[in-house]
């Protein structure tokens, strides 16, 4: 029996379209892998075996009869368990929601259904998506499939680990302060946070409404592009939704970087970065230059304020979402999440509004910079993939706060709503190093094109992962 679970979405999709692979057979292969491996990795909170096989058989009949819905048709995928799916429980990673049955589909779930995707189940996440390690006190820790002593990252850690280990062909995550890109970097896969408003957040449990994004995760840049094209588009049910047609990035994917102008802001992206991580990203930049890209030094000192503004906005909005629940049932929250929500009660209204003003100011600074460069490139994480339970990491011999470090560089794209992808750029101590590419608003194509070139430079480290 062919092991479809180790294939890229692009390959599975092609086999299904050509009717060389049966969607039912593909789904069974991946579901069997979930049965055998998920007890060790804990990537799913719920698995819909019967429902998934039924969807796969419907897809199979449709394709046989000449009805082909597109590249996700008959492809088995997972979704993060903060996304509503009709008649299923959405736990949001919290014990308080262990019986919360959704009556509607999230906007992105509707899109997947229209595209004919087979939804396998819902992935584990950091409690309420309010953390970056997926050490969940209610549903257990998700382990990194590359090294079970390491974090999978978060908050979309279950999805990243499932994709990296063959338990999902692709998945949907959410990203408020790096929650797609951090686990993608930790698990050696590709994760894209699109432009704010590109993908509907309707039916996605909110964390911080002006920072929340929904986006794709996959084994390759092409996989992520295929998923993105299926889930973008205007949704009037999401007040932040942009009224633009769906993207068509996959068909236009190009690794030609000959006229690409890469912004290199050493101060923001490379300060206090582990030397081995910086070397890995530096190697990628040199290879991009060899292929014709220009690396342009640029200094934006104002970006130093980004972490402050993001923290004020993120924690204030999250604490607003949880205000009543936290007051009534504080004991139902995990220790780290409760502390975060209490921190979010500290800023005054003036602090919050000043943070929004900083954000607005930084938006102008960066949009002006995009006149001179096409993308910014830096590491996704300034540190090596941490061990589980690690709260202090070493950067070139100096101790740093692990959690703050994980979010430090990725948060800028959330603050400014910019598209940003993490793509594997190499290995340090047999663990992946993510390269982060940030583009201008609606610049998903150039971000993915650049990532596509990086993937070719590194030959896709997914091939080194022992699935």
């Amino acid at each position, binding site marked *: 029996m062919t092991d479809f679970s180790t294939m890229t979405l692009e390959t599975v999709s092609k086999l299904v379209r050509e009717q060389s692979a049966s969607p039912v057979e593909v789904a069974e292969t991946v579901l069997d892998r979930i049965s055998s491996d998920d007890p060790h990795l804990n990537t799913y909170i719920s698995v819909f075996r019967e429902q998934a096989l039924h969807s796969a058989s419907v897809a199979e009949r449709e394709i046989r009869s000449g009805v082909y819905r597109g590249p996700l048709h008959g492809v088995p995928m997972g979704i993060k368990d903060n996304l509503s799916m009709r008649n299923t429980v959405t736990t949001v990673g919290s014990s308080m929601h262990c019986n919360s049955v959704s009556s509607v589909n999230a906007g992105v779930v509707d899109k997947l259904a229209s595209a004919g995707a087979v939804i396998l189940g819902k992935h584990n996440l950091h409690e309420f998506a309010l953390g970056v390690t997926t050490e969940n006190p209610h549903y257990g820790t998700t382990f990194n499939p590359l090294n079970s002593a390491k974090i999978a990252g978060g908050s979309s850690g279950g999805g990243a680990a499932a994709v990296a280990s063959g338990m999902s062909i692709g998945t949907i995550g959410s990203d408020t302060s790096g929650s797609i890109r951090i686990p993608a970097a930790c698990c050696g896969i590709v994760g894209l946070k699109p432009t704010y408003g590109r993908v509907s957040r309707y039916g996605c449990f909110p964390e911080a409404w002006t920072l929340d994004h929904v986006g794709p995760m996959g084994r390759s840049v092409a996989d992520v592009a295929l998923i993105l094209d299926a889930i973008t588009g205007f949704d009037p049910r999401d007040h932040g939704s942009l009224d633009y047609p769906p993207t068509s990035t996959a068909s236009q994917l190009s690794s030609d970087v000959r006229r690409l102008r890469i912004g290199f802001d050493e101060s923001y992206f490379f300060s206090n970065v582990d030397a081995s991580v910086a070397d890995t990203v530096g190697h990628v930049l040199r290879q991009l230059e060899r292929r014709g890209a220009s690396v342009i030094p640029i200094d934006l000192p104002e970006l130093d304020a980004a972490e*402050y503004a993001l923290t004020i906005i993120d924690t204030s909005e999250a604490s607003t979402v949880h205000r009543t629940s936290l007051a009534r049932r504080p004991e139902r929250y995990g220790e780290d999440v409760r502390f975060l929500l209490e921190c979010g009660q500290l800023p005054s209204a003036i602090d919050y509004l000043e943070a929004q003003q900083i954000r607005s100011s930084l938006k102008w600074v960066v949009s002006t910079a995009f006149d001179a460069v096409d993308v910014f490139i830096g590491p996704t994480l300034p540190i090596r993939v941490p061990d589980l339970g690690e709260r202090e990491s070493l950067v070139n011999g100096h101790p740093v706060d692990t959690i703050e470090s994980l979010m430090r560089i990725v948060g800028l794209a959330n603050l400014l709503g910019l598209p940003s992808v993490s793509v594997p750029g190499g290995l340090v101590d047999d663990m992946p190093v993510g390269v982060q590419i940030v583009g201008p608003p609606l610049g998903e194509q150039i971000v993915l094109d650049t990532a596509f070139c990086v993937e070719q430079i590194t030959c896709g480290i997914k091939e080194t992962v022992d699935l």
Partner: protein
Amino acid sequence: MSQPDEIGSNCSDSNRAAELAQYWESLILKRGSHMDSLGPDVRDIAVGFDPRVGGAHD
């Protein structure tokens, strides 16, 4: 902006109060001097957010 010694003053758990004060103190340090250079063009922003434009969403 609240001062660190005010933070946690209403908290009955002294350890938690100290943790919150420490958090706030370290956050203030990250604020830097950027606010000093904010021009009047961003003073009237609304809370809504649209990445395509410099101002309010609505």
